[in-house]
């Protein structure tokens, strides 16, 4: 009996090898507080892998996608990553969704020599550069540079900032303070708010008393919508800028008419319908949007786009480097001029994100909808 089992199991084992597939791992926050980010990423990746396999796969070999949920937690991401590395023998991991979990598995990815293409925003994931670590979303710093560039062009020098007291607000605030000099901008007021605060007129009236040329608010959730309302209530003349964190229909719904005339940097997917036909990103975005919306019957979000780019980069690297993990990492580092959903990726030894300022557009709220400014 024991012998039989042994033979049987070795048969299965060998059989598994005979039909070897390419194991691609993914970790997303499908449940938990970041599920609105993680779910579209998972859906996008599954859709693309399915499509790739139907088209014949890589030299006849199919991609076997293994997706795990990290619930947005660091420890969970670590556990799932080790499982992908040791049990599932994946050649690349896409994700995680959030910055914390991405940082938590960074060392493990290097130890196991597995290329990691993160879908989280923070710059620290790829800075300092690590041979195996890449990421697809734009860093928050690029959004800041986009706003400053616009202000510089309009000769606005005195800027007041009001940022939320959480991870997103802190990153934004640091970038706003650090980049100001490079654009000849002076920060004349630096106010904070909690994302649970219900009234920001105190901070805003203090800002107004210093008569800035522009106000920049950095936060996510309902608090920035309250800032927009209070800004209108105090009848402040200086234009209001916000981060890409509020580039969602949900925000427009919350802020209502108070958002009118407000500026923000946003990815192209947010305004895909309004892009001119000459825009080189439009075909890719429209194609992705149509496929996603017909498959899942729900509107596309820019977060899914991060997974879209991650898979496309992996595909390019696979086709160039083959199934070897080191070669994939090398191929990823050498990707140039890949036009993705978020922007044009130009990877290099010093930049494992590869996106530039042009991945953001400056948009304005008009009639409770977006309007492209430049």
């Amino acid at each position, binding site marked *: 009996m024991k012998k039989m089992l042994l033979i049987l199991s070795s048969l299965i084992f060998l059989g598994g090898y005979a039909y070897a597939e390419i194991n691609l791992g993914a970790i997303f926050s499908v449940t938990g*507080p970041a*599920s*609105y980010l993680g779910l579209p990423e998972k859906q996008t990746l599954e859709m693309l892998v399915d499509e790739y396999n139907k088209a014949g796969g890589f030299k006849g070999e199919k991609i076997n996608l293994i997706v795990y949920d990290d619930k947005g937690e660091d420890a969970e991401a670590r556990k799932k990553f080790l499982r992908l590395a040791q049990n599932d023998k994946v050649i690349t991991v896409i994700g995680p969704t959030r910055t914390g979990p991405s940082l938590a598995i960074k060392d493990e990815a290097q130890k196991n020599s597995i290329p990691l293409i993160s879908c989280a925003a923070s710059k620290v994931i790829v800075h300092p550069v690590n041979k195996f670590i890449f990421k697809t979303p734009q860093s928050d710093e690029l959004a800041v540079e986009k706003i400053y560039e616009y202000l510089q062009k309009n000769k606005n020098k005195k800027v007041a900032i009001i940022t939320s*007291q959480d991870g997103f607000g802190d990153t934004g605030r640091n970038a706003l303070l650090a980049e100001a000099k490079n654009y000849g901008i002076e920060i004349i007021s*630096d*106010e*904070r*708010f*909690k994302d*649970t*605060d*219900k*009234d*920001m*007129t*105190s*901070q805003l*009236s*203090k800002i107004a008393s210093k008569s800035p040329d522009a106000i920049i608010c950095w936060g996510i*959730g*309902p608090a920035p*919508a*309250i800032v927009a*309302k209070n800004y*209108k*209530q*105090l*009848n402040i003349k200086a234009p209001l800028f916000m981060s890409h964190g509020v580039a969602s229909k*949900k925000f427009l*719904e*919350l802020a*209502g008419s108070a958002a009118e005339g407000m500026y923000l940097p946003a990815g192209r997917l947010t305004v895909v319908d309004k892009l001119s036909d000459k825009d080189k990103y439009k075909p890719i975005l429209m194609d992705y949007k149509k496929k996603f919306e017909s498959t899942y019957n729900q509107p596309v979000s820019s977060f899914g786009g991060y997974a879209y780019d991650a898979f496309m980069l992996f595909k390019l690297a696979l086709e160039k480097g083959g199934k070897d993990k080191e070669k994939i990492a090398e191929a990823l580092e050498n990707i140039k001029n890949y036009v993705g959903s978020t922007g044009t990726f130009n990877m290099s030894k010093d930049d494992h994100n590869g996106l530039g300022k042009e991945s953001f557009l400056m948009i304005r709220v008009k009639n409770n909808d977006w309007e492209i400014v430049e």
Partner: protein
Amino acid sequence: MQFFYSGLTSGSIYALVAIGFNIIYNTTGLINFAQGEFVVLGGMLMYTTLTILGLPVSVAFLVTFIIMFIVGVVFEKFFLRYVKLKTETNLIAITIALAVIMRGIAMVIWGRDSLAVPPYIEDKTISVIGGSMNSQSILVIIVCFFVAIILSSFFKYTKYGKAFRACYDDQTAATICGINVNMIRMLSFAIASLLGALAGAIIAPITFVTYTDGIMAGLKGFAAAIIGGLGSFWGGLFGGFALGVIEGFFAFVLPSGFKDAFAFIILLLILFIKPTGLFGKKKAVRV
């Protein structure tokens, strides 16, 4: 001056929560840490009835109140009454547990996004001396005073109000006098839940409603109740406005990141100097 009006707006929210704490404290001597969740549920039910079901405002309020009254009754009748060892600590711990459960349920039903409830009166900015206020905020402040007047006269002058207070003073004595203590306790939770719903419903157009809002509303409301003195409605009202204005003031004069810290330092000072709160009375205990 704007910080003063800003403080009144957030203060009125704290005040309404603080009054909710006081209703239950005045009859049972308990602190109900789910008061913030009552507020959230009220706001979310208004969203459901008004925005999703499209009911007229008056019907929406009525439906919300009825549901929340039932929630309050269930809260006391099923979860607090059948506790074996009814010490204050046990019961308070149960209110914390229920707060977490209610937050979870709200997340499952209404999701994680913030919900916007349409304004009940025309949304406009009113200029006042040295600043401006939103018409919605003024409505909330008026409701605040209205509630404090009604509740304090109810507790002071009506037969039922006196029964509520008798329960707080001595449950055994109250039972001997023919007061149905269980009924009164249940009613106090039902009224607090209803008041929470009213608070949630009227502040939702200004602040939106998110399932996690209850934590901060509960904490700040509790602080307001302590500042004013537990058990006093006018104290709760004053405490709420004081906390709001102090916060607004510190946000205005200091780097605004420290405003919460300073508001709570004031709370500590009050507890050091006058532990019963500004309007609180000490419960007389016969030794």
